């Protein structure tokens, strides 16, 4: 449980960070809160020569709420996200989901940027971001570009982010007032990844459903959202079941996961409907 040796870098600005990334190619990796990456390094499943710590880069921090839009700096910790009252009013779904991630100790360190950039199907934020129709801002040598969360995930640990790009900000549209929301997650214990989790929004002209840890990427289903918008809950569940592709693990066999996925989704929908104004 001891990582192989590596060089540690702590740049103070984005340009230097990208410079170091480019200089070392796939030998280098950025570290945010370290709560996904460092365990992998300790298991020697991730071996890298250069670790670039993003903690000192001020521009990656901060939560901004403007007209109709929230911007989260990539280095915002899950704890900061939970503690922010304005954010909880603007997009209450974020706090509800973040509170179901890991435990307080992990949330003091784990960042929202690390959670979405990681590409682990177990992470809760990617599905959540797809449900909310977030956009990720990436900064690289060629400048800045944006990718929709719904187009970001390619396979487990593979995303649209190039190796030498850094995720800087997450841009979120604020759902209209009165939108019903819910994040429901079944897990074995505090600190566990989801057996199945569902993010649901139901509102005026906006119904969106995404699920977590039921495929090698988060699953956002347009059909499920459309069915839900039309009040067809079972149609929504069916569309989602058609979209997921869970694998057997210690949480249980596939049939169980599919069953639970449907139950959790229905519960999230019920809860979202009950909150809809």
């Amino acid at each position, binding site marked *: *449980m001891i990582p*192989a*040796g590596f060089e540690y870098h702590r740049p103070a600005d984005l340009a230097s960070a990208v410079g170091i990334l480019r200089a070392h190619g796939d030998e280098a990796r950025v570290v945010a809160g370290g709560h996904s990456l460092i365990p992998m390094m300790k298991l020697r499943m991730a071996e890298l020569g250069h670790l670039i710590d993003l903690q000192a880069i001020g521009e990656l921090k901060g939560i901004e709420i403007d007209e109709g839009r929230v911007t989260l700096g990539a280095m915002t910790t899950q704890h900061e996200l939970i503690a922010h009252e304005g954010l909880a009013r603007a997009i209450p779904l974020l706090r509800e989901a973040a509170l179901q991630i890991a435990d307080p100790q992990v949330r003091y360190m784990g960042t929202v940027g690390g959670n979405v950039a990681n590409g682990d199907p177990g992470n809760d934020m990617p599905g959540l971001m797809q449900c909310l129709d977030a956009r990720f801002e990436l900064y690289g040598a060629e400048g800045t570009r944006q990718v929709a969360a719904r187009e970001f995930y390619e396979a487990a640990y593979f995303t649209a982010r190039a190796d030498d790009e850094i995720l800087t900000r997450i841009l979120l549209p604020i759902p209209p007032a009165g939108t019903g929301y819910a994040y429901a997650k079944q897990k*074995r*214990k505090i600190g566990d990844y989801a057996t199945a989790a569902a993010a649901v929004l139901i509102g005026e002209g906006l119904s969106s459903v995404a699920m977590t840890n039921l495929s090698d990427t988060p699953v956002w289903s347009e059909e499920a959202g459309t069915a839900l918008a039309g009040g067809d809950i079972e149609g929504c569940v069916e569309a989602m079941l058609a979209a997921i592709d869970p694998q057997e693990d*210690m*949480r*249980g066999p596939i049939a*169980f996961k599919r069953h*639970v996925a449907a139950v959790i989704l229905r519960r999230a929908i019920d809860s979202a409907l009950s909150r809809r104004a």
Partner: protein
Amino acid sequence: MKDEVQSPEERSAGLKGMGCSRKRVEDVRFTQGKGNYVDDIKLDGMLTGDFVRSPYAHARIKSIDTEAALAVPGVLAVLTAKDLEPLGLHWMPTLAGDKQMVLADGKVLFQGQEVAYVVATDRYAAADGVAAVEVDYEDLPVVTDPFKAMDPDAPVLREDLAGQTEGAHGPRRHHNHIFTWEQGDRAATEAVLAEADVVAEEMVYYHRTHPMPLETCGCVASMDKVTGKLTLWGTFQAPHAVRTVASLISGIAEHNIRVISPDIGGGFGNKVGVYPGYVCSIVASIVTGKPVKWVESRMDNLMSTAFARDYWMQGKIAATKEGKITGLWCHTTADHGGFDACADPTKFPAGFMNICTGSYDIPVAYLAVDGVYTNKAPGGVAYRCSFRVTEAAYFIERMIEVLAIKLNMDAAELRRINFIRKDQFPYQSALGWEYDSGDYHTAWEKALNAVGYDALRREQAARLEAFKRGETRKLIGIGLTHFTEIVGAGPVKNCDILGLGMFDSCEIRIHPTGSAIARLGTISQGQGHATTFAQIIASEIGIPADDITLEEGDTDTAPYGLGTYGSRSTPVAGAATAMAARKIRAKAQMIAAYLLEVHDDDVEFDVDRFVVKGAPERFKTMKEIAFASYNQAIPGVEPGLEAVSYYDPPNMTYPFGAYICVMEIDVDTGEHEVRSFYALDDCGTRINPMIIEGQVHGGATEGYAIAMGQEIAYDDMGNHKTATLMDFFVPTAWETPHYTTDFTVTPSPHHPIGAKGVGESPNVGSVPCFSNAVHDAFRPFGLVQSHMPHDHWRIWKIAEDLGLHG
């Protein structure tokens, strides 16, 4: 002066003796991070050792190339079996009469097995060295199923035993067979089964799991080449036995070995065994002349050091139509992994599994246990239980439920009509034990009343109706358990480990000013010995517990004892403590009589002093007596005031308890919620009620983990699937149920203070209680038996198989 105004009750309270909820003296350092654990030990020039472990469950080792590892900066040596062989240390004896590879000798038998030992200047270099060792494996067919292991053409696991038809415990009938252990009367039991009104039959599996001490296993070995003395600090639950074993296998004279168990962060049986890390660290220290530390990672611990349980228990229970049990039959297939490294008394290869008649008056019984080799880690320790007692308790408490289903009877009533009655004690069980004392009916009634049993059953029935009407998806399960343990091993006449009789010891020295130090042969791993044993002495000789230092774990200073496991500390060392204290009291009486100028028989003990009979104003306090013992020349009495006692218990003790759990179960997700958990424990005389309560909370939480999710799982290739805390279930405060504790007191008649031991009762009793609650919820739908752990998907599977998902 103050003495004279204090009543005897006040003086007694000031002692903080037996019955007092004295705060744990250990916690001052533990809660401040000031404990001294093995990993806190830092010696000049200390090196670190770490293992190369096998990625295969069964493979031949074709070659080991250490060249690259030796080139890693900081790596000083890489030990393999070839290096240990000239010393005769490439294999070592196990506690169960088998032998075990220290480092892989030609092949590996389980994933995670120790293959090479890298010695380096620090942990980082050692880890890099481990990664650089190249091992060429040729994989062999893997057996993880103990039944398939006994197929005629199953792969041969232990080639070293080829042709050996006789093992440490009798004949071996197959190349993967270790022993058969039989108890009771087979013919009589089978006759009863053949003629019984009712026979219930079931396979009860108690899955493989693992103790989870917060601190993993480890040691520091330091060979002083000048004095020739080896000092070994380690996480040992039995330091004295480790010294003897280390001497026997290394050839170093026993007086030249000093074993020290410092603070230990939980043991639960995991730290009873002797592991390759200890042997390799000693060798490495001898070779390098420097101290060598080895501390397991969590993965190392879960993969390689001793597991627990893994018993397949086929049961048959016979009864009359009225529910009176007439016989019990059990055949167990015990999966021991690649080596038989169970930690049991020598004559008990399946531990005290023959306590499996439980709390019930069962006239005839038969038990057979077959031990089998598989490609899994060795072990088979008692995880917070006396040797295999939790398996036995789980078996009988499940069989009672299975019988209740067959008889269509209430399981509480079935227990009631079969309990051993109070007037039957001491009770001879059909499988050979003499239960010392018990009052099961009283405990049972108290428990049923406390939880409002009848009202609970009515609520459960109403819920079931609501469920059937489609108004709810949650069922209620009521889990019942009445367990009887057998602890305090044990009488030297039948209990030994590697030939060492299982007595224990205490030595007490009273200082001139009336304070004291006591040393015991046991070793606390969090049980609070420094607190409770001082309380025994306080009550026995009238010195305040706060004035007594307690020491354990250093073989150079403590009297010899067999250590702490199997709830034996209070029954055995606690008895030795009381006996040593009584020797001191007897001498104090002579001194007091001399000082008071009366005959020995004319003084009597009164809390903290001896008083002249009939003249209570004439007395000598223990403080005065202590001083006198150091400064007066008393004819016929040696100076000083100290005593030692080695206590060979005449019998085991038999703690018991009644546990009741109410659980809500979601049939759709398989989730559960423990609504209430009531635990009544009878551990005889209660020394410190607060510590008892703490022990019950801790043990019940481990029991909860085991019943509801904790397991060591392997796939068909022998890959370990639960080697991290992501998948190995350890409840957090959030999942942990709330407990209500209660008690009755039935002292042990043969123990000097009547105490029976409690540390393991809650693990033994709670596992069947939680499991029975799950089963009970589904009983109306026809569920008879479903194996633990009852994690979400397995509970969901019960509901699915019963057609409850529509």
